């Protein structure tokens, strides 16, 4: 076995290796090229203001994508997040409407807790009862959405019912950057640490990579799954509050269908539905690509009727380009292994 192992080592010594190790290379280049293209068509694209807007509008997506990533890594999926966002957003908004004095941080906390509770329900169904995640979350998506309509009784909570401080959460800035951006950055850092430098973080990968061996090496799978869905729920709940605060309005149909966008961001970023693999950097890129699309398409002043078509086309193109580049890299590996 010396033979193969040795040149495996050589690969790592190769200066290009680091470069190649970043698996979403293709996606990265794709985004760069896309940006250049858009910039040529509308110069106001890469202005500081627009970039900030883009970042602000993408923050929520990023936060959710982080959660979805760990769910997907455990071979799961969560279709209910859109509904959870709506539910926690609505409840928090109603709370604020009832007593405007309530502290914004408390709001964030409450929203997160509501979401986490929703997540725990899923966690129990998946981890303890053993339902397939896609079924459990599909069903709970309906239930949470229905509950949102019930508690709101068809009414919206409007901006005039919301306190300054509450709306501030998502509109205020710190060091010139919108709070949302800071929150997203914070979560990225936390997740990076969590996934790479804590035992639990690695166990999430382990469970997704090979459940059987996770079992024999004494990892409590149930616990991990429960944790993962609770985190996802918590993040959704948090984003519910951010969402409502950002748009200064809570509706029953808030964020309906948003789960697909989040999942798309993850898979674009190279998270495998089959579980076990997924890197934060990739997911970030995936979210950024979608963020760019949402921001750039209106700027391109193409007919609004073309927007969907273009968006779908670009997403497909992105994943395909990424796949092709990956293959190229693999092949160069082989070439060098053959020596």
């Amino acid at each position, binding site marked *: 076995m010396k033979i193969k192992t040795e040149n495996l080592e050589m690969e790592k010594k190769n200066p290009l290796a680091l470069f190649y190790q970043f698996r979403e290379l293709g996606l990265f280049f794709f985004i760069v090229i896309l940006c250049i293209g858009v910039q040529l068509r509308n110069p106001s694209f890469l202005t500081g203001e627009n970039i900030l807007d883009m970042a602000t509008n993408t923050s929520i997506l990023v936060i959710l994508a982080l959660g979805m990533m760990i769910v997907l890594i455990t071979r799961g999926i969560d*279709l209910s997040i859109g509904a959870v966002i709506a539910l926690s957003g609505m409840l928090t908004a109603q709370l604020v409407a009832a007593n405007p004095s309530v502290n914004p941080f408390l709001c964030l906390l409450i929203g997160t807790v509501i979401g986490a509770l929703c997540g725990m329900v899923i966690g129990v*169904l998946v981890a303890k*009862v*053993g*339902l*397939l995640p*896609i*079924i*459990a979350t*599909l*069903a*709970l*998506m*309906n*239930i949470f*959405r*229905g*509950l*949102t*309509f*019930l508690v709101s009784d068809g009414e919206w909570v409007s901006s005039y019912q919301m306190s300054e401080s509450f709306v501030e959460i998502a509109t205020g800035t710190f060091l010139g950057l919108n709070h949302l951006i800071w929150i997203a950055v914070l979560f990225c850092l936390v997740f990076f640490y969590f996934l790479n430098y804590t035992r639990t973080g690695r166990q999430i990968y382990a469970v997704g990579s090979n459940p059987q061996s996770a079992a024999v090496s004494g990892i409590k799978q149930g616990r991990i799954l429960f944790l993962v869905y609770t985190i996802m729920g918590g993040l959704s709940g948090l984003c519910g509050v951010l969402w409502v605060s950002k748009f200064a309005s809570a509706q*029953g149909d808030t964020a309906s*269908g948003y789960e*697909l966008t989040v*999942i*798309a961001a993850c*898979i*674009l970023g190279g998270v*495998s*539905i*089959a579980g076990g693999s997924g890197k934060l950097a990739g997911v970030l890129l995936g979210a950024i690509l979608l963020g760019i699309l949402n921001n750039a398409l209106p700027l391109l002043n193409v*007919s609004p*009727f*073309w*927007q*969907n*078509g*273009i*968006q*779908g*086309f670009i*997403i*497909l193109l992105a*994943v*395909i380009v990424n*796949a092709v580049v*990956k293959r190229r890299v693999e092949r160069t590996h082989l070439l060098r292994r053959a020596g």
Partner: protein
Amino acid sequence: MEQKKQTYQPRTLETNLPFSWKRLFFQWEWMLLLILVAVLLLGSYVSPYFLNYPSLRDGTMVFLDKALIVFPMAMIMIMRDIDISVGSTVALSSVVMATLYTSAGLPMEVAIIACLATGAICGLINGLLIVKFKELSAVIVTLGTMILYRGIAYIILEDQAAGGFPEWFGFFGWGYVFGIPFLLIVFAVLAVVFGIVLHKTTFGRKVFAIGNNPTASRFSGIKVDKVKVIVFMLAGLLAAVTAIFLTSRMGSTRPNIATMYELDIIAMAALGGVSTAGGKGRVLGVVIAVFIIGYLQYGLGLINLPSQMFLIIVGALLILSVAIPKLGGMIKRK
């Protein structure tokens, strides 16, 4: 294994199973049948308009159109894949059909054929992308095409609606044959056909094999890619059929029809006992599940229950029906 190991002495293998009540009754379909009966009783209890032939008959026309897609969707799920682009495929094929008839002025028959072709091509594209780029999961591919296909529909019709079809076209959505809705007949025929294909033919066997272990299937000489492409094409084709019925029911079409169909369809298949983990599923179960959800919806509609309540009830039903057997199993193991 009580026989002693006599490797060289020829041993015989039993070729017919002893009859077992357990095997007969411990089947998902019975559970579903019970639920269906419960739904019907409930319906007749809550609404005087529910449990009579015309009502039940016309009830089917309300939900069966999208149910046509559930058969290929079941196959796809059995193969551990998923197709969330079917809703958009319905919209695109419908829009193509309508435009060819109204704008291009082609005869309706041609338009219908074009509609079917469109659907099949959409499915074909899904299938090809999925087998050519294995590293992309079906989810992301069909998610992309979901947006793309509807996008094309928007490009074609923009903010317009297209309609004014010939009289006879209304027959698909509203017509009866011997007092039975044409849609219901088509559904029944498809159910039988897919039942046979999936459970009695080599093709069906291959579908299950792929869902069970793709690698081993390939090593056993099954053309996995070919089978996949065909099944995804079927999904597209059936989406087009649905488009015909839906368009006929609405008498006109728009790019935004059939939104969110995919989730309803997946829910039906799942309730029908098709495992998204692959390898399991029966057409009979799926058919019963379709009627459960359909009639539940219809019955609750007759007592004018809020739509949100309906969302909750279907969600709960889905969870309970899947969870109860599992819980039962857990208790047994205890």
